[in-house]
C-alpha cells in the first residue's frame, strides 16, 4: 500500500540512493505541478518527501512546500530554509563524502565501495553522533567475489564500535548492521509499492532513478504496451498506471520471498540494470546483503552476551551468501 510520495523539486535534486543523478541543468518543478502533487498526496493519504536541489528555491515555493506535513531530503550543508520551521526530526541529509558533523537526525552517506574502505574509520566516528546513518554503496554492480572477505572484515570492525556503544547504553543506528537485528520481516525500499516518485515533468516514476534513466535515454521504456510513457507510471492528470504491479511485491520475487536478509534494499532499479527483471536481484545485491545479515547476526550475539536484547529476533546461521545457490531447497 502506498504511503509516501517522493517529490523531486528540481531535475538536480540530490540523489539519495544507489543511482547517481546525472542531470545537471536546473529544471524546477512548476509551482502548479507541485500544488497538484501535494493535492494528490493528500487525497491518497501519502506522506510527502521533498527532495531538494543544492540551491535556494524561489520564495514562492516555501509556502506551498509547507502547506502539508513533510520530510525534507537535502544535500548536506544546504538545509532548506522555508517560512515555517517545523522542527521535523526525520529530515534527511545526503552526503557523498563522510561529513564531520550531521545536523539532521538521518544521514544518507553515498560512497563507492573503495571510498567506504578508505573512510571506514571516519564512518565509525559517525555512529557516536546520534544520527541514524544510512550507508549506500553506489557501485554495487562492481562488487566482486574477491571483495567478499574485505566487506566481512570492515563490517566486523564496525561491529566492534557499535558493540562498545551498546555497552555504554547507547542505541546507534547504522542501516547495514543494526536494522536487521530489529526486523522480523522484510523492510526494503518497496519502490512502487509503498512509495512513488513525482518528477518535475508532472509524471510518476517508480523511483527517481527511473526518471534519471528516462532523461538520459537509458533503457527508457517500462510499459511496452504504452511506449510513449517511457519510464513513467502515470501522471498527475490520469493518476497511477503501474504495469505488472504484482512484480514489485515480495510474493512475486522468487528469490526474495524466501530470504531473511530483511535489511536488504531490494533495489528494483539495480535489479533491472543487472538482471533485466525488476523482481530478480543480482548476485552482487544478494551477496552484499547476506554479508550484512551475517555480520548483524554476529553483532546481535555479541550484544546478547552483555544484555537482553530483542529476544524475539532469531537470525539463523546459514551456509550461503546468495539464495540463488540454494533456490531448489526453497
Amino acid at each position, binding site marked *: 500500500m502506498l504511503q509516501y510520495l517522493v517529490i523531486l523539486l528540481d531535475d538536480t535534486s540530490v540523489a539519495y540512493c544507489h543511482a547517481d543523478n546525472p542531470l545537471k541543468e536546473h529544471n524546477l518543478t512548476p509551482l502548479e505541478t507541485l500544488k497538484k502533487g501535494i493535492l494528490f498526496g493528500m487525497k491518497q493519504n501519502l506522506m510527502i518527501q521533498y527532495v531538494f536541489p543544492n540551491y535556494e528555491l524561489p520564495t514562492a515555493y516555501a509556502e506551498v512546500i509547507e502547506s502539508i506535513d513533510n520530510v525534507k531530503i537535502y544535500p548536506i550543508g544546504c538545509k532548506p530554509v522555508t517560512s515555517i520551521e517545523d522542527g521535523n526530526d526525520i529530515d534527511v541529509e545526503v552526503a557523498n563524502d563522510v561529513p564531520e558533523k550531521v545536523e539532521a537526525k538521518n544521514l544518507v552517506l553515498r560512497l563507492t565501495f573503495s571510498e567506504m574502505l578508505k573512510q571506514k574509520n571516519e564512518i565509525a566516528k559517525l555512529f557516536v553522533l546520534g544520527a541514524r546513518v544510512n550507508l549506500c554503496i553506489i557501485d554495487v554492480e562492481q562488487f566482486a567475489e574477491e571483495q567478499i572477505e574485505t566487506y566481512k572484515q570492515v563490517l566486523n570492525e564496525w561491529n566492534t564500535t557499535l558493540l562498545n556503544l551498546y555497552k555504554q547504553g547507547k542505541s546507534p543506528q547504522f542501516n547495514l548492521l543494526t536494522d536487521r537485528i530489529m526486523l522480523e520481516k522484510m523492510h526494503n525500499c518497496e519502490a512502487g509499492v509503498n512509495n512513488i516518485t513525482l518528477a518535475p515533468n508532472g509524471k510518476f516514476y517508480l523511483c527517481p532513478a527511473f526518471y534519471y534513466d528516462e532523461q538520459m535515454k537509458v533503457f527508457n521504456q517500462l510499459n*511496452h504496451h504504452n511506449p510513449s510513457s517511457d519510464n513513467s507510471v502515470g501522471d498527475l492528470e490520469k493518476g497511477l498506471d503501474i504495469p*505488472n504491479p504484482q512484480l514489485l511485491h515480495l510474493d512475486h520475487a522468487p528469490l526474495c520471498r524466501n530470504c531473511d536478509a530483511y535489511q536488504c534494499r531490494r533495489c528494483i532499479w539495480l535489479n*533491472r540494470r543487472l*538482471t533485466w527483471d525488476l523482481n530478480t536481484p543480482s*548476485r552482487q545485491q544478494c551477496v552484499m546483503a547476506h554479508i550484512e545479515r551475517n555480520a548483524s547476526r554476529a553483532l546481535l550475539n555479541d550484544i546478547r552476551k552483555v544484555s537482553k536484547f530483542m529476544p524475539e529476533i532469531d537470525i539463523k546461521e546459514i551456509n550461503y551468501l546468495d539464495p*540463488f545457490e540454494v533456490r531448489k531447497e526453497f
Partner: protein
Amino acid sequence: MTIIKAQQESWQSGMAKNITFIVTKDCQLACKYCYLVGKNVKERMPWDVAKTFIDYVLDHETDPEFAEESVVWDFIGGEPFLEIELIDKICDYIKTELFRRNHHWFNSYRFSFSTNGINYHEKAVQDFIQKNLDHLSIGITIDGTEKKHDLNRVYKITEKGSYQDVVKNIPLWLEQFPGSGTKVTISSVDIPYITESVLHLYSLGIHEVNINVVFEDVWQEGDDLKFEEQLMQLADAIIDGGYYQDYACSFFSEHIGKPMNLERDNHNWCGAGKMLSVDAAGNLYPCTRFAQYSLRDKDAWIIGNIHDGIDKNKLRPFLTLDLTTQSPQKCIECEVASGCAWCQGENYDAAKTHTVFQRATAICLMHKARVRANNYYWNKLYRKLELEDLREQYEAKKREVKPKIC
C-alpha cells in the same frame, strides 16, 4: 541404405544440456505462422564464431552451467541445412575436441536438427547423415495434407507451396529414422484441416505427430469451438480406424486437463535459461526465442557473448521462474490447467514490461477446447476397449507422445 536406430524424441531428457547454433537466419520458406520476424540472408555464422563458442563451452566443463551428463548440439535457422558445410565442420571439431579433452560429453552427445526437409536428399546432407548416424536426431516438418501444408509453408519469393518438395523426402527420412515424429503447427486458418492432416501424416508412415497451436495471439472468436469440433472428429477417426494402437497424436494425453498441484507442479514449463544459444555475431541467449530475429516488440535478451562468456546475472530470472509467479490468478485456479503450455520467449515478447514473469494466455480458450475433446477421446476409447475386453492389453503397451519441453 543404412537403417539408423529408432529416434528417441526425448534423448537423455532432463540430463542433457541443450546448446543451439543459430547457423543462419535464412530459409527457403516464408511460413505464414513463423515467429521469426527477422529472417535474413546476411547473418550466417562464420566458422571462427562457431569455433570460439565451442572452445568457450568446452573450456568451462566444470561450470555448473555445463554439468549435465550429456549434450544435445542443436542446429537451427532459418533452415539449418542451408549451412551443411559449416555444420559438418562444427560437428567434426566438436567430436575431435571432446575426444582430445577426454570431456565428459565424449560419447554422450547428439546432433539435433529441425528441418523443412527441402534439401534433405542432397548429397552434402546425406553424406553428413551417414557420417554421424550414431549421434543424430533429425525432424522434418510436414504440416499434413498438401492443402494444409501449402496454406502456410510457402517459398519466400514465389509463395509457391513446398509440400511436393518435402513429401518426396519423407520415405528416405523414415527409412533412415524409423519411428520419427513430425511437428505440426496450428494457427487460426489451419483449424479446418487438422483431422485430415493428422490422418494424412499417418498414411505417410509417420507414427508420431507432435502438434501444437501457436502461442501468439492470433486466435479469432469462435476458433476454440471449431478446434474442439476438429479434435472430436480426429478422435472418432483415430478410434474408429484403430490408429490408437500404433499411432500417436500429442493432442490426446491422459495427463492434461486437471487442476495444478501447486506443491508438486510449481516449476517452469520451458527450459529457457538451462539451454544456451549462439548466433552469427557470437551473442549468447537463454534460448533462440530471445534472439532479435524472434522478437516482435522487445529487444534481444543477450546473456553474454563468446568472448566474455555468460553474464550469470542475466540468467537469474530464468532459473528462478516458477509457475505461480508468472501466471495470472485465473491460470493458478484453472480447473483444467495441466498441459497448458507456454513459451517463455512469447511471454517476454507479449509482456507489458521487460520481464519473463508475465505469462501470455492467448491459448487459454484453445487449451480448454483441447481438454474437452481430449476427455471425449479417452472416454470413448476406454469404453470401446472395455466392451471389447481389450483395455488391460491396451494399457500395457499404449503409446503416448509426451509434450516436448523445449
